[in-house]
Structure formats: structure tokens, C-alpha cells
């Protein structure tokens, strides 16, 4: 190899290393609003008296043993700025193209302990408009990292003038015309 080729190769290699480091850093930065490993409680602010971690209430600790259990919990996720995208995707996937003006409002952030794990979660009010512009809203509990829906509640209650106009599902005629195997 000539010295010129060697220099060119070295420059390319250096550029490659710099690029890798830069992109990797950016990726790390976008991983979390908390730049800490998921389950390293030492890096979190723990308030045993008020049963909080990083200012978030911890719900679901063993009854009667909340204060002794709190320092031992294992956090299974970490909050990101991505949760709302995951949630919106799920809503649009179910609702199709017709829904519009999807709005997500996080009204509470806490840590939910269930099934042996503790998750950062968001309590979110979801609002959107149907194709006929009727507004719908309800609540979901989502994973603060992925936006995965964990719970769903506070749905609207409708009182149509004619209940017989409600959505119905017709049976496939093959079931009762003898052609179903």
C-alpha cells in the first residue's frame, strides 16, 4: 500500500469512527428522558415516606409493606418521548382512516406495579372525531416507553332515541342455509 492510499484509508476510517460515535450518542440521547439503566434504582430519586420514585406515585405495592417494598422494586421500562406515537398508531389502526383530530392528553404519570413488575405509565385522555364529526373521548393507561395500552376505562354512555338503530352484526347466511360445513 502506498503512503497516499494509507492516508486516504486512515481518513475514511477516522470519519467512519466519528460518524459511528456521533450517531450512537444521538441514539442514546433519544432512548430516554432518564439516561439511566432501567432497573438501576440507585439512579432514581426515591421518596419512601410518600411512596414516590422520580416524583411519580408508586401504586400496587404489597399492602401493609409499602415502605419496605418500595426500594426493592424492579423497573421494567423507562419513560420516553415515543409513547404517544405508539398510542396514536394503535388508535388509528383500530379506527381506520375515518377518524380525525386525534388528541392525547396525559393527565397523570405514575408507576404501576402489577404481575411482579413495575412500569412507568401514563394516564391519558384520548379524544378524536368520528367521520360525522361527533367527538369521542375516553381514558387509557399506557406504557410510558412504548405507548402500549394496558387499561381502558371511562367510556361514554349513549342513550339513542331508538335503541334498535344500534350497531348490529349480521350472521353469515351460510350458517342457516345448509351450505356451512
Amino acid at each position, binding site marked *: 500500500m502506498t503512503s497516499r492510499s494509507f492516508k486516504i484509508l486512515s481518513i475514511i476510517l477516522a470519519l467512519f469512527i466519528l460518524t459511528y460515535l456521533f450517531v450512537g450518542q444521538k441514539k442514546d440521547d*433519544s*432512548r*430516554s428522558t432518564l439516561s439511566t439503566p*432501567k*432497573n438501576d434504582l440507585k439512579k432514581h430519586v426515591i421518596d419512601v415516606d410518600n411512596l414516590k420514585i422520580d416524583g411519580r406515585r408508586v*401504586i400496587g405495592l*404489597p*399492602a401493609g409493606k409499602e415502605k419496605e417494598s418500595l426500594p426493592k422494586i*424492579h*423497573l*421494567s421500562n423507562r419513560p*420516553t418521548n*415515543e409513547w404517544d*406515537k405508539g398510542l396514536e398508531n394503535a388508535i388509528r389502526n*383500530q*379506527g*381506520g382512516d375515518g377518524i380525525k383530530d386525534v388528541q392525547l*392528553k396525559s*393527565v*397523570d404519570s405514575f408507576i*404501576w*406495579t402489577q*404481575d*411482579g*413488575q413495575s412500569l412507568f405509565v401514563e394516564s391519558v*385522555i*384520548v379524544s378524536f372525531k368520528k367521520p360525522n*364529526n*361527533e*367527538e*369521542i*373521548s*375516553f*381514558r387509557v393507561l399506557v*406504557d410510558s*416507553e*412504548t405507548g*402500549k*395500552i394496558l*387499561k*381502558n*376505562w*371511562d*367510556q*361514554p*354512555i*349513549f*342513550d339513542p*332515541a331508538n*335503541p*334498535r338503530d*344500534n*350497531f348490529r*352484526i*349480521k*350472521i*353469515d347466511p*351460510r*350458517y*342457516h342455509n345448509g351450505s356451512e360445513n
Partner: protein
Amino acid sequence: MNVERHWMIQLLLNRSTARKLAHVLCALALTLLASCNPTELTPKNAKSSVMANDGSLTGMAYVYEDSPYVLGGPNYGPSNVSMSSFLNPLAKLITPNNSLTGNCTMNFYGPGVTINDCVRSLSKASASTQPLPRKADGTYIFPTDSSEFYQVNSLYHVNLANKMFHDKLNFAYQQAMNMDVYDEPKSIPSYLMSSKLFWFKAMSSIDKKIFNFDYLTTYSQCDLEGNASFNPTGPTLCFGGLKQHPGFYFIQDPSVIYHELGHAYIALMMNLRNGVNSSNYHPLRSNLGGFGYDEAGSIGEGVADYFSYMMNKRERLGEFALGKIFKQARPLTESDDLHSIPGIEETPEGRLSYPQFLLYDPNNPDVIFEDVHYAGQIVSHYLVALTKELKTSCSLTTQPDGGHDQATSLVLLLLSETLSELGDLNARGVDGYNSGMENFSIPLTGSDYFVNLDVTNSFLWSQFNNPVTFRRFFQTFAKNINKYISYYSPPTREGICPLFTKDKSEKLLDDYGLLLFKTYNDNGNSTKDRNRNIQTAVSQYATPTLTPVSENNRRKSVLVSKELIELSTRTTENPDRVGFYIIDNSSDMEAVLKELLYKGFTVPTSPNVSGTIYNNNNIRISPGEILGLIPNLLNKSNSPIAGVQLLATDWDHVHITETQTGHFKPCVIDSVTTEEQGGEKNGTCTSTDTNYKRLIKDSASNTFPSSAAAPVCMVLSEEGETSKWVSQNEFRKKQGLSLLDKDCLGYSTSTVSDQDFTFNPHECLVRFLPGANDAFYSKIEPQKSYYESVIKDSEGGSFNIGNVLLLEVNKWIPPGTKFRCRLRARFSNCSDCYTDGNFSNDDFIDSDYNGHKPFKVINFDFEIND
């Protein structure tokens, strides 16, 4: 010049004339200006015209007290509706506030607590978000039939109803607090004064974590076609109209306003126990009602109907808004003329009883229809009948109002005690004891729970595993009748009205077919340990005892064994009978998913491995599909069964053999899955886990629990000559499917996340979708299937969306793979679904609903189609 002088003289002479003329002109101008000002309009039938507010009309307006049907007769409308003929000639106070807002006050024992601006009245969400200010003249008098007029009237009725509700809730609160004197537990919490959960406002003015806004918004002319609604998220009330009849609005019928408010009051009462202060409240909230048909929703509709009766004393609802065009007004007693079927009357034999009248529409009695509003009529009729009985038994009829106010207060006491217990997501049900006078009781702490299993799983329990049904609601309601009304044990304690005896109460319940329980379940068992009760947790409480129902009072309420329900099969006698219906037409399924979302129910799917694009409409179960499944249950008994619930939620039915993988053997719980097929009789199968935990990996230890609730579907693993039922996780690993976690159903990661610890690998291949993993069926007639009972001859021959379970199938499953899904069924008038024969018919404790004992296991077997 003389002329000038003459002119001046003339001017002088005319000055007084000119002055008079000026006065006349001014008066005329003022009159003209006044007549141009729309704020000075008065009702046609007003006895005096309003030229200016002298202070006596401040904050007031002219309102309609009832609907055009009631005030103008059945022939009025629906075209060209004008409320001007129906206005009360006396102006009414709308609000003392400077804008169209209301205040909510509960007195408790002293000056009380007031939440200012607890209600706002607006026109619609797309219009102004600020409530109308009081006019310059201090009144709220706007032109009749204008948008402002309806906002004013809306607030008038909402304020009226709120005052009534809070006055009665105050009465209930005081009666409940009295129980402390007798060392009796109660549900309405004494700390209600500091939690302020008697309204939607959260704990403090700056704490808006629970609600979108800290006031109830009413939209008097919202963009809702042929409908009215309550949304607990707002919270909001929405009153729509009809495009084909401009000028016709639901808000013109106050009985509908009171019904919608009834839903709001139910939401309040169910959550009275779900917060203590601004840092201690449960993040979820309870309510009655799901999608489609279920019994919680039916009870909600019936109670909401009753609030209309409570407000206006009338025994019919919605004559104008529901009845005028759609002929769907609802009666509230058997004496109403809307009941045209002979035999329906206010007698023990003539009551609108359960389950006979569950599908009954009085406006179309010949065509059955499954809907919560029709089923709710049984509840509303019972509550009105109870009110009348209380008026008589408690000697209230001599009062000027016939005892209506006091009798309905007693019913609200019963409703609030019942709903606050059933909706308790903190899972305590009762409070601890405090010797201080100001707060008689304090929130219970420690490891004992007395309702809805525990604080983490209370939502799952109260909505799915042990939901509010006719049976559960009326058992708790009856318990409270016995405790507060009928109790008679002098000199220790007497109820409010001991002459309404336990026997009378049971007879009335039985007249309505609602005596669905054998005991009052009032022995205060903890949810996880039958050896612990409220007294072991709080020693000051009196020793609880189990009160049995007098079986002599059970004549109409027939109970049936769960062994008599099963999946239909085709027989020679019934060649048309189908075991289950599948919906796998892609456009139908897209419509189902959309409709669920439009009702506020999310059904998260796995777009990377399934979707309706794979639906092939062959009414078989094929890889990749998202399909609807309706198991067609059969009633083999000679009596109708009702309130049939089919659960596809995870439950404790397996014995875990390896905690590294979570592999399991199914428990042998019936003759269908045997030991030879890989079943297990011993190990953890000999008892039901008292703690509910899903079979997912613990992120700390990276292992699965040794005992857990598992998904319902197992796979048949054929290894040589043996075939065994195994977990889906075991199958995908052993059968060489090479499916990574990310290729499984329910797996979700963000773009930066590497693992989803909420994912369950034991439903990698097939799963019932969360949000649609339980189904409800109103009634099944004797010796018939559900289809034959409700669908076959009904209008349209179609299913209710609540009848459907949604199944998701991984696209990577090889055709020919066989599955068995162990669903659990029970129903409300079941003799052995709720009581443990080993414990003198005491109810099962909550943790028992994690297992199979209270249920009939329905095995749904299928093979993946090519």
C-alpha cells in the same frame, strides 16, 4: 328687529311646548330602542312585561318546567316546536353566578362544602367554550328558542337536579355516619368532606389529574343525531337533535336531562371511595356499563330512569324526546298505559319480572330486542315500586308531597351505599375505625381487602371476573335495605323504617324475579382468606354474621345449576343448531373494530403478524385473521337462564412445570382434558391461587412465577404417538416454528426499546383480544340455544356487539394446528355459581373467581384452517 323679537317671543312661547315635545320624543325614542333590544322579550303568557330589571329578576329567566308533550299535549310537535307556549310565567332563578355556571354544595353537618362553578352550560363543543355572561340587565332572559335560551334552561334543570342529589346524598351520608355509633361498617366514607368526591372536581382547584375539567359541562344542542350522552372523561352531558326536524331538541324534554344526570350521579356514587386526598386516589375509575348488552349497563339505565321519577314524580320518561318520533318513551311502573300486554300490573303476579321481561319493549311488545334500555325497565320499575312501598310502610303518605321526598331519599341512601361498595377500586369496601369525632372512620390499611380482590386487580375484578350483575347488585342492595331500613333489634338498634321488614323486602324482590341470592353475604369475608373478616381487620366492628334469605319468599326467582349450560351441538333433532358463529368477513370485522373504538373501547391488535387483510371470509379460523367468535350456548334446563357471561380472560387453570420458560400442564378440571393428554391433577391444581398474577416474565429474575393465571388457549402438541395439550410458548419452541418474541401476538416495542415485559408468550399464536375477551348474553330459554332464544326471531336476526369475542390469529401458525380454549361461563340466576356448598352457601370469596369453581368451563376446540 321686531321679527327677531317676534321670533324670540315665539321661541319663548314655544319653549314649554318644545320641552314637552322633547320629552315625548325621548320617550318614543326609548320605546323604539327598547323594542329593538331582544333582551326585553317576555313570554307570551307573562302577566307583566319587563321593561327593566329592578333587581327582582337578577340571575333569573323564564323556563319550561317540563316537555311540550306534558305541557302541550300528545299532539304537539315534532315540527315547528316553540317553547314560548310552555314557559312558566314566573321567572326562576337560574344561578347567582355572573355567568351560566352552577355551584354544588353538600352540607354535611355544618356549613358544608361548596364547589363553585361545578357546572357550565354551553351550546356545543364546536362553539364558544366560555359560558354566557349575565346580561347587562342582570337577567338571563334570552329570546325563546335561541341557543342562549336552551343553555339557560339546561342549567336551570341541572342545578335543580344537582341540589336534589346533593341534599339526598347528604341525608345518606348522615345515615351512614350513624352506623359508627353501632360499630357497624358502612361504605360511604366519612372523609368525603375532604376528598370532595361528591362531585367531579378533584381534590384541589389546581389538581386536575382526574378529569379533563373540574366542572361538568352540558352541551344543550350538541352535534349528536338522535341521541344524548354522558361522558365521564369530560365530564360532559350532550343533548342532540334531529336533522329531519329542525327545532326539535332533546333538551326540550327535562326527563331526558334528569336521565343523563342519573348516569353522572351513578359515576359519582361508584367512585365515592376511590380517593382520600389529592395524593391518594386510585388512578382508574368505576362505572356501570360496557359495550353492547350487559347487566351492569342495564342496571345503569334503570337507575338513570329512576332519577327522572325522583325529580319530577312522573311515572314515565322521555315522552317528547324519545316518544314523539321514535315511539320509545319508557314507563316506570306497571300501571302505565304504555304497557299494553294484559297481566302487567302492580301486583305480585303482574310485576315486570326478571328474566321474563329482559327483552321487552312496551312500544313493540311483539318483537323482542336485546338492549340495556329495555332490560333496565325491570330495575326502574322495582325502584319505583320500592319507593311506593316505603311511603306506605313508613307512614310517609300523609306528608304534603305524599312522602315522595323522604322515600326517594331512602332509596338514594341504598343506591349510594351499594354503588360505593361495588365500585371501590381501593378494594377495601369499608373503613378503619377512628375514635375522633370529626372523622369517625379512616381509610383501612394493611393487607386485608373486602371487595374486588385487591387494589391492583380491582378494575379487572369489578369489570370482568366479578362484575356488577343483577344478582350482585340486588344482593348488595338488599343487604343495605336490611341494614338501614328493616333492621330491628331493640334496644340495640332499629332501622329507619322497621315496618318495611326483611320479609317485605324479599317478597318485593322476588315479585321482580330479583331474589337471586341465598344469603346477604354480609359476613364481611376478606377477598383472599375466608378466615379473615372485617372484625379480624378492625376489632371495633361487631362480629358479622351471615343473614340467610327466607326460602319461603322465593316463588318467582328460579335458580338453575351451571351444569345445565353447554356449547350447542348439531343433533338430528336440531340439525340447524350451530356450536359457534364466526365472523371473518374483513369489512365486517373492520366495522366491528371501528364501532368498538367509537364507543370508547380500545382493542389493540398486533399489526405485524395479524390484520383484517388476512380475513378470507370462509367462516373458518385461518392464519393472520382477526375474527369475531360467538359461541352458541345451550340451556338444557327447564327454566330460562339470564345474564350469561362468557369469559376468555386469563385464569388459574394450569400447573407450571418450569419457571424458566413458563411451560405448564393444564389442570384436570373436567373429563375433557385428561392426564393422558398432558393434564395435571395435583401440584398447584388442587387449589386456586388467591393472588392474581399473569403468566409473564418477572423482569427482575427473568423467570416466570410458579403459580399464575394463564391465557385460555392451549395447543395440541403431537409427538409421535402421544398428543398433549401444552402452552403456546412450549409449542412454538418445540415445534420448530422459530418464532421470536417480536413475531408473537401482543408484542410491542418502541423504536428504542428492546423488550416488552408486559408481553405474554403463552398467547403468541392465538389470543382473545383485550377489550373484547368477554361476552354477554341476555337470556336463554329452556331447552334452547342463545340463537334460538334471542336472535332467530328478532328484528334483523343479528347479534349485539357485546355477544362477540374477538380472536386474533398469528399469520405464522401452520394450518392444521389444533387449539383448545377453556372459556368460563356463568349466569345470574345460577344456583351454584356464587355460593360455596362447603361453607353453608356463603358466597365464594373474590379469589375463587380466579379459578373454575364458580364457573362452567366451556371447551372451545378448533383447528387452523389453510
